[in-house]
């Protein structure tokens, strides 16, 4: 012990640690045991949310797909709501909101996303469940892996890979149907009439799912996923995470009947049964402490608790707890965790922005672009004419007519080009050319502010204004 302590911190100390530190580079396939338990049940429920991913695209609303990210027409449909690209700023707020929720949850309860909600975890879990059903329990699977190739092995392996590919294909199809009409997509798919981008998307998702979830599995979390690392640094000593109570567990050792009361008292509660390692989907040993490979799924808690039941010890040798608590420090109150409060603050701001955006979507938007070449035109009666390009975005689901009026500007100005109400087409921008003519002697300034207002003929509440300028000659 003395020698080790001396060497800790030196270069060779790192190598010594490396010797007993198992780095999972995927050389060995991890065959995790499946065990029922509290966290297993929670995980099943949270992962079942991904059924929505497969099913929601088939939901119809008013004869259209209820939720559709319509890329071809640059529209986002959410039931009655249609969001056009002009309102895309809300998307950035939504992304901010989601990121902050991830940060806040991680700082409070560690990698909840990784353990219960991540698609990589979910798909891998399903794929290994299928493997378990076809090839049997982990021992049988390890035996099968080293067994010589025979009919039985080939049959089992092909069935497994076939089902994996089927799910991967369905994943690709389901992903695509969020962006195009689902029924239309299936129709085109079965007739092999998808556009190139459709095939590329499908192939990418198919191979992506198959390779990442079926073959690479935990290697993705260990070496590819940036969020695993980002979330890893967001936990601190106040974060609750699945942790091994080393004070209670050590020194670990096999349970010996012979040891008697004395021997047992000297021993910790950990009986070194390796169940926590056996059930771990990423193959880490939680007793080594919090580490990169731990996706905090809680399956080792289920395993350990079931063993503790058998040996007659209380639950919670491995439990959700903070490092502070493990080390016997007093638990800090929530408000003394300022980082989380900052996250929550940003969440509230982003959420407020989205609510504001959704309630102020409006039905119509106006943009007026004054002609810049020429800025103005002299007319034969001495008046000055300006040309404006109107872009009216009708966000409703029906066409309607609008009137054009102007406030400010020059005395006795006349608006030309909107004598009759103008038709605006729904769901897109309609352009008009509008002229404003004003008597030359009334123009007092080179640039006069003018506010255009458009208003629906049917509904005076549907209106929009745009502030711009009327240009005249230098005075």
């Amino acid at each position, binding site marked *: 012990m003395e020698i080790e302590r001396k060497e800790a911190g030196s270069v060779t100390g790192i190598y010594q640690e490396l010797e007993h530190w198992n780095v999972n580079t995927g050389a060995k396939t991890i065959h995790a045991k499946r065990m029922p338990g509290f966290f297993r049940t929670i995980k099943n429920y949270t992962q079942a949310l991904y059924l929505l991913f497969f099913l929601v695209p088939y939901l119809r609303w008013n004869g259209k797909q209820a939720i559709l990210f319509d890329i071809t027409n640059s529209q986002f449909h959410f039931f009655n709501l249609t969001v056009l690209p002009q309102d895309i700023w809300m998307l950035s707020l939504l992304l901010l909101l989601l990121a902050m929720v991830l940060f806040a949850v991680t700082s409070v309860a560690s990698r909840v996303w990784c353990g219960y909600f991540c698609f990589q975890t979910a798909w891998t879990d399903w794929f290994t469940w299928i493997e378990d059903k076809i090839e049997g329990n982990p021992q049988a699977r390890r035996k099968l892996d080293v067994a010589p190739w025979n009919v039985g092995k080939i049959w089992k392996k092909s069935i497994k890979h076939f089902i994996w590919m089927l799910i991967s294909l369905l994943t690709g199809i389901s992903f695509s149907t969020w962006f195009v009409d689902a029924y239309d997509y299936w129709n085109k798919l079965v007739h092999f009439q998808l556009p190139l981008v459709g095939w590329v998307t499908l192939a990418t998702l198919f191979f992506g799912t198959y390779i990442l979830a079926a073959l690479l599995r935990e*290697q993705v979390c260990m070496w*590819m996923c940036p969020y695993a690392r980002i979330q890893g640094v967001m936990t601190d000593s106040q974060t609750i995470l699945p942790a091994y109570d080393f004070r209670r567990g050590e020194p670990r050792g096999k349970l010996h009947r012979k040891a008697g009361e004395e021997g047992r008292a000297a021993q910790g509660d950990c009986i070194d049964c390796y169940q926590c390692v056996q059930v771990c989907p990423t193959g880490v040993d939680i007793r080594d402490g919090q580490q990169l490979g731990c996706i905090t799924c809680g399956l080792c808690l289920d395993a350990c608790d079931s063993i503790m039941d058998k040996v007659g010890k209380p639950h919670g040798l491995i439990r959700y707890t903070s490092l502070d608590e493990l080390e016997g420090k007093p638990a800090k109150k929530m408000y003394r965790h300022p980082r989380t409060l900052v996250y929550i603050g940003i969440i509230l701001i982003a959420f407020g922005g989205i609510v504001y955006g959704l309630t102020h979507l409006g039905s119509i938007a106006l943009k007026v672009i004054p002609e810049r070449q020429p800025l103005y*035109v002299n007319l034969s009666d001495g008046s000055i004419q300006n040309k404006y390009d109107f872009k009216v975005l009708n966000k409703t689901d029906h066409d309607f007519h609008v009137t054009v009026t102007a406030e400010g500007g020059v005395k006795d100005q006349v*608006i030309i080009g909107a004598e009759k109400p103008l038709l605006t087409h729904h769901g897109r921008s309609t352009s008009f050319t509008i*002229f404003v003519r004003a008597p030359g002697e009334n123009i007092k300034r080179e640039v006069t502010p003018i506010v255009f207002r458009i208003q629906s003929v049917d509904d005076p509440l549907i209106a929009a204004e745009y502030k711009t300028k009327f240009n005249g000659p230098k005075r």
Partner: protein
Amino acid sequence: MSEKHEVSSVPTTGHVWDDDLADLTNQPPKWWMLGLTASALFCVVYFLYYPSFPLSTVGGYFKGIGGWTAIKEMEADVGEVEAVRGKFEARLKGMTPAAILADSELTEYVTRSGKVLFGDNCAACHGQNGIGTHDRQGLFAPILNDDDWLYGGKIEDIHASIEGGRQGMMMAHKDILSAAEIDALANAVAKGQPNSTPLFAAKGCTACHGEDGKGIQAMGSANLTDKIWRFEVRNDKLNDAENMKKLVEGIKRTITYGVNSGNPQGRVAVMPSFKEAGKLSDAEIKKLAVYVYKFGGGQSDAPAAAKAPAAGAAK
């Protein structure tokens, strides 16, 4: 080569730095090796599919099994544009300019797509967006945005101007009128009141410019009573008095030396026929007529009816 390091069972490369620093010969992760192999395969496929390397022995280059060329890609892109425009172009062919103008969808198409045609053929003299161009003598080609038209601002008139070209004509008066007479006429015209001097009628100006001085569009003679001048524009850098002086000088020059009169100091006002020159097809001339009309100066066929509400609103 390989040699075991004391701290690990993994063999090292055999080289030791700084007494105890060695390189373990660990394999890169499998997924990384797969990625590397896939990238290498991609390069091979890419090199075979696209033209990728010169073949110096035969003096050419490897054409690629995909048959891709930049020209083909460009042609495909052009084809895409043509397909979008084709349906509009097909409709344009059989229509008169007035009918195009009556169709809002086609008008929209022409005003959007006519910019290139105008830029290539018209803007050299008339300026981008028809703002006119200037030379040392003044305005070189008329502004097309305003409501003053020498030969008429109806769609048919504009179409005829582009198709057949226009040539202004005014004789030089330096041998007919005295300097004082020219000066008097120029001042009267500059004020927009040509008839304020009896010379206007007496010297025969009315023959071309009309008795009221408002010009005759069939001849292309200018309206002398309005505020727009064929060869002069207001200079914003000068004040009103200076501008007036400049205007009078310009008018004197026009009266003295004429327009297209053969006099080297005379004004030049020539627009070629774009049909005769073979530069533009019938459809293109029609498109340009609508495009120019839409600058804002185009006059509808029933000016009285159209002007009435505007005039009412002005009051």
